[in-house]
């Protein structure tokens, strides 16, 4: 059964980025030994109660004004909850109390992830770049930057970033995978395949490598083969939400595999309930293939909650509302989308 609450991540490794995120760890085993104020802040973030978050941050400041780890950890949790500005303030506070370069770089990286998840690409890119500037020896910073550039079609900058990363980490399969995804975005399938070959030689049993192959096959419209590649990635790591998601996408492209695709999307949601995309696709199958509008609406509403300015989710939700006879809800969704779009202004939306 899918739970729609924004609950705590069971495992950060299943987050939406292709690669496992970097854990900064300002505190040592913080969750088991954390003071009540810290637990209260976490709860407020999980409940997405902005007023309570503000209160708990003030309380944290009062109780632990000089506790670097507490403020750093608060920053991590806020960043994870997509409260990027408060997270930045907590990181600044922690860093002002003395922090290692690794912690400095890590805080920028986590802020980058926060902004990326909030579809605030420019800020995310700036944070990733700062992270690399402070900690150039951390492979994951480079990979995050390259992937974000690729997702934004900034393939020129992506190539530059990939070149720099590969010069530093020539034997890094994740860097080759990221470089391959840039090439894929650039339409250079030959280069993408070459990057995949290099990555495969380095880590033949990496789910990352299998997923890159699947992405290449998707681009070539070889959907059945792509499904096999994503299934291979799933075999290697059954908790890889992204592999499930892409498997669902490839299955949905095959036309006659809607039920299997839906199951894959539901599994992706179960493993990582954060990204809007899996909800959108699950909703899409319910509405467009199975003509089960009410079911689809449940998922599409979750997609819109997570990405209010993401047009496709709102478009389909409005259509589903209309088809199900919920005219007022359709009008409300239209109004909310227009408001979110205006807020998002010209900022590109990640999808």
């Amino acid at each position, binding site marked *: 059964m899918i739970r729609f609450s924004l609950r705590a991540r069971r495992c950060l490794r299943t987050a939406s980025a292709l690669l496992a995120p970097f854990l900064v760890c300002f505190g040592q085993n913080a969750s088991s030994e954390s003071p009540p104020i810290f637990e209260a802040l976490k709860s407020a973030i999980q409940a997405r109660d902005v007023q309570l978050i503000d209160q708990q941050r003030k309380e944290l400041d009062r109780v632990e004004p000089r506790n670097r780890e507490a403020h750093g950890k608060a920053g991590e949790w806020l960043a994870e909850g997509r409260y990027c500005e408060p997270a930045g303030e907590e990181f600044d506070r922690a860093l002002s109390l003395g922090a290692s370069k690794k912690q400095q770089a890590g805080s920028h990286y986590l802020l980058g992830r926060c902004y990326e998840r909030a579809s605030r690409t420019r800020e995310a890119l700036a944070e990733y770049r700062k992270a690399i500037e402070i900690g150039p020896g951390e492979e994951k910073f480079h990979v995050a930057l390259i992937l974000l550039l690729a997702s934004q079609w900034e393939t020129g900058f992506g190539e530059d970033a990939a070149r720099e990363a590969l010069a530093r980490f020539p034997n890094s399969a994740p860097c080759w995978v990221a470089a391959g995804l840039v090439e894929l975005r650039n339409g250079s399938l030959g280069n993408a395949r070459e990057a995949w070959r290099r990555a495969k030689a380095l880590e033949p049993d990496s789910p990352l490598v299998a997923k890159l192959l699947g992405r290449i096959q998707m*681009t070539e419209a070889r959907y059945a083969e792509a499904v096999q590649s994503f299934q291979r990635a799933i075999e290697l790591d059954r908790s890889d939400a992204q592999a499930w998601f892409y498997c669902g996408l490839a299955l949905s492209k095959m036309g006659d595999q809607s039920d299997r695709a839906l199951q894959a999307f539901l599994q992706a949601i179960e493993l990582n309930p954060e990204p809007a995309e899996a909800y959108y696709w699950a909703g899409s199958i319910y509405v467009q293939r199975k003509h089960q509008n009410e079911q689809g609406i449940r998922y599409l509403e979750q997609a819109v909650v997570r990405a209010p300015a993401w047009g496709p989710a709102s478009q389909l939700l409005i259509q589903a509302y209309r088809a199900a006879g919920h005219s007022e809800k359709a009008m409300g969704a239209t109004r909310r989308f227009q408001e979110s779009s205006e807020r998002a202004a010209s900022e590109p939306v990640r999808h």
Partner: protein
Amino acid sequence: MSEPPRNRFVTDMRWIGKLSVCGLLLAGLGVSFWQSDRPGAVDPITFELMAPRGLHFVSNSGATSRKYQPQTMLAGVALIDYDNDGLLDIYLVNGAAMPDLVKNGEAFSNRLFRNNGDGSFTDVTGRAGVKGRGYDIGVAVADFDNDGYEDIFVAGVRGNILYHNNGDGTFTDVTQKAGLDHRDPVYGRLWAASAAWVDHDRDGWLDLFVSNYVVWDPEQEPVCERDHVPDFCHPKLYQGLPNSLFHNNHDGTFTDVSQRSGIRKSIGKGMGVAVADFDNDGWPDIFVANDNEPNQLFHNEKNGTFSGAAVENGVAYTENGAAIAGMGADARDVDNDSWPDIFETALVKETMPLFRNLGHGIFQEITRESGLTAATRNKGGWSNGVFDFNNDGWKDLFVAAAHVLDPGGNRRASVEQSNVVLANLHNGGFSDVSSHAGNDFARPAVHRGAAFGDLDNDGRIDIVVTCLDGRPEVWHNTSPVRNHWLIIKTIGSTSNRDGIGAKLKLTTSSGVQFNQVTTAVGFASASDRRVHFGLGKDSVARKLQIVWPSGTVQMLENIRADQILIVREKPALPKSGRDPGSGR
């Protein structure tokens, strides 16, 4: 033949909510009946590739080893009866030297070819004075000053041109005088791709909508490669632009109302424009196909302003949740249910969406159900049109196909493509009949613009397709089944003289069809403004109802088929007043 659909011109506002819901539900139910497996059951569609004497033209993109973005966009074509002799002439748009964007030689000249009526054409560019100035992309045709002669608007990369038809075979460049020598306060010169003449405020004078593409500067052109070979860059690397709307001041001048009308609020990468009254409220709405940005649907608010309605009406994105590389667009009723649908072209692997109007401007994409996913997946589409090529009473689809990439680049094998024609199966589905469309039809080329019209007035819709750095293709419609037809040329009086925006409902014993007067079709191109209907086996149309932009409703009865009918707008009559045969 199915039951005639209800009269779209009778709109009971109380029905709107219910109809919307019912339409959606019925659409869902209807899906399983679609995707016909009987392509042989429809009348064949065939074309013959002509090489008309006198039509000497090779488009010139100013190709250089540096892949400047405009070089892949060339160019539009218009079918225009500029001399009012009843024969469609051809106006072809051309490029310029790169990176100067100047037509520094005859090779870059736009060209006007007069139709001699015997299958040959005469180049009248010099006498007409319409050779253009800069790097031109698109063209729009209409009689903007209501003087009875079709004028030409040319959309360009660094500037647009308005040619006023003097009525004596010559044109005058009135761009400056008309106030269209336009420089945007924020973006400077706007790269215009397509345009549409539309009387958006129904004052009897045609206004001008221009779709603008991207911010582009040859000095800032990024360098892109495909597998180490230079090629055109992805549109994502360029900043989008707002579109423009110019209000006709009735005195030969225009006022830029882009800001005031709300058009400027929305940024896109505008390509093809389609105009129709999608919600049947009597006011024309505007659809813009955007390249890798969500499509735009500007709903006419009846007070000189437009509101963005693409997302809520279901046409911003495809069913794959994608903002596709939208290229061309045509808005016409493909299922004879009275509501104008939208057919849009896109690039290879994206498929070309068909948005079905469920009623009142609410759309549902039926690309998969209609058979278009399979038919268009491996094609890149530029200009397109929705016309009844076999005159069977159901509108078919045509796509001018090619890839966007460099024909000399690493992907050259897939750049040249053959065009696509899809026959309407009368059940919501379409069948790709390209392979049966004649021996010439498989000819691959780098197709771009396409204009539709009856060049020889034989009642069958012909097509002129442009090719990048190549000769235009003139596709003479040779569809063998001699179905009946009717072509209507509207002449407005209270409405704009072309009657652009008039809505036509044709009733025969087989059913009812709908169409509207527009010249904005496909990508960067302008088609015959005369409205064409295929009548199938019906030799008589029982009724023809025309709703003019002025609101005047005119009814004609018992109209003989196989003729070109000129209908002049009558002054508004009392509701009961009918004048059978009026205007014939």
